[in-house]
Structures are given as structure tokens and as C-alpha cells.
């Protein structure tokens, strides 16, 4: 399953709820304001760090760029992809679930 999250983890509980419903082998893609969740050293970063072994994490690069979030400032191990990479991720997983 591919999960997409488009909300800031500082503003809403959406990322948290998503992560609690991920299973081993799932992928989580952060898009739009959701990319704020990729920042390391924040009040929210522990949630992603805690799931990094079981779940693969991706960030939509154009959204990270827009918000001034460079790769170096992201939690280690998060993969940065572009829109075509997003399409590939969707293709690779039978189902996508948008956490809105």
C-alpha cells in the first residue's frame, strides 16, 4: 500500500494517524505541506524515525524545494522523488490511500 500525506505534522494529526496504520512493506509519500514532516530534529520527526525500518519514506522534491527544505535537512533515509517518481510509486503498489 502507498500512503500519501499532504498535511503538516505540526498542524494536524494526519501523519501520525497514517503512520499508525502502516504495515511492514508499505510506502509513505509526503507531498504539499506534508513535506514539512521530512525535517529532522523537530517535535514530529520521531514518528517517522520510529517507522523507518518497516516503512519506506518518500518526499516529493518539488514540494520540498518550494518550502526551502533541502535533502541535508531531512531525516536520514528519506528518498526524494519527482512527479514521475510519484507515478512509479503508484504503479508499484496495488492500492494508494490519500490521508486527507
Amino acid at each position, binding site marked *: 500500500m502507498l500512503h500519501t500525506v*499532504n498535511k503538516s505534522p505540526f498542524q494536524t494529526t494526519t501523519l501520525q494517524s497514517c503512520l499508525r496504520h502502516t504495515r511492514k512493506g508499505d510506502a509513505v509519500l509526503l507531498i504539499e505541506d506534508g513535506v514539512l514532516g521530512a525535517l529532522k530534529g523537530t517535535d514530529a520527526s520521531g514518528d517517522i524515525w520510529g517507522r523507518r525500518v518497516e516503512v519506506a519514506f518518500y518526499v516529493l522534491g*518539488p514540494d520540498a524545494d518550494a518550502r526551502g527544505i533541502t535533502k541535508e535537512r531531512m531525516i536520514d533515509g528519506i528518498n526524494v522523488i519527482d512527479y514521475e517518481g510519484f*507515478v512509479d510509486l503508484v*504503479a508499484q503498489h496495488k492500492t*494508494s490511500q490519500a490521508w*486527507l
Partner: protein
Amino acid sequence: MKFSILVNEGPYTHQASDTALQFTRAVLAKGHEVMRVFFYHDGVNVGSRLTVPPQDDRNLQKSWSDLAEEHKLDLVVCIAAAQRRGILDEGEAKRHGKGEGAANLAPGFRISGLGQLIEMGIESDRLVVFGD
């Protein structure tokens, strides 16, 4: 692979219709098929031909209409959601007595029922949702 896309938010206010547009372009660039794009909730507002964004900004309605023309995309606006929010094609504008020339549905969009959304789920290999 056959993709379908659901857009749940209106233009400019939320990024959803921007992301959906970029995603749809990427789907096509990768050689996949786009069965349909369905606009629901405030997403129906993407289909208004009356929007006049600032000149230095993007024009989301036009971008979608152009993409639809270029790739023969099926852009469907939900009729129930559209009525609530004041997006009408000519038939609807006439039926509700809104006067000559009042229809505001943009070129390349058509209005239809929610069954079209369910069909997307049934017939596509992948359905991706963009919203708020």
C-alpha cells in the same frame, strides 16, 4: 497501466489541483493511460471558465483544458457537487433558469454523475486521490 485521478479541492485555495495536474502530466509522460479525471467537492470549481488569475500566476482551468485537448482526457465534474457550488453547463443553466450565457463550465470539462467516479474505481488499475 490505466490511471484515474480524483480532485477534491478547488483551484488556488489548496494545492490539490496543482499537484493533480503535475501528476497527470507525469502519468502521460510515462506512457500510461489516463481513463478519467473526476472533480468532486470544491474540485468542481477548477472547471469554471470565469476565473481570471493574476497575469504572473498560473491559470489552472486553462492548464487542465489544454491538457485535455492535447491528450483527449475525460474531465468530469460531479453534477451534484457542481450545482451546490454554482458550476453549470448550458443544459443545467437553462434548466435552472439562470439566463442566456450564464453557463460557466470551461471547455474540455463535462458534467456527469457520481457513477463516473465509481466506474473509475472499477475499471482503472490505479486511482489516486488529491484533496485537503
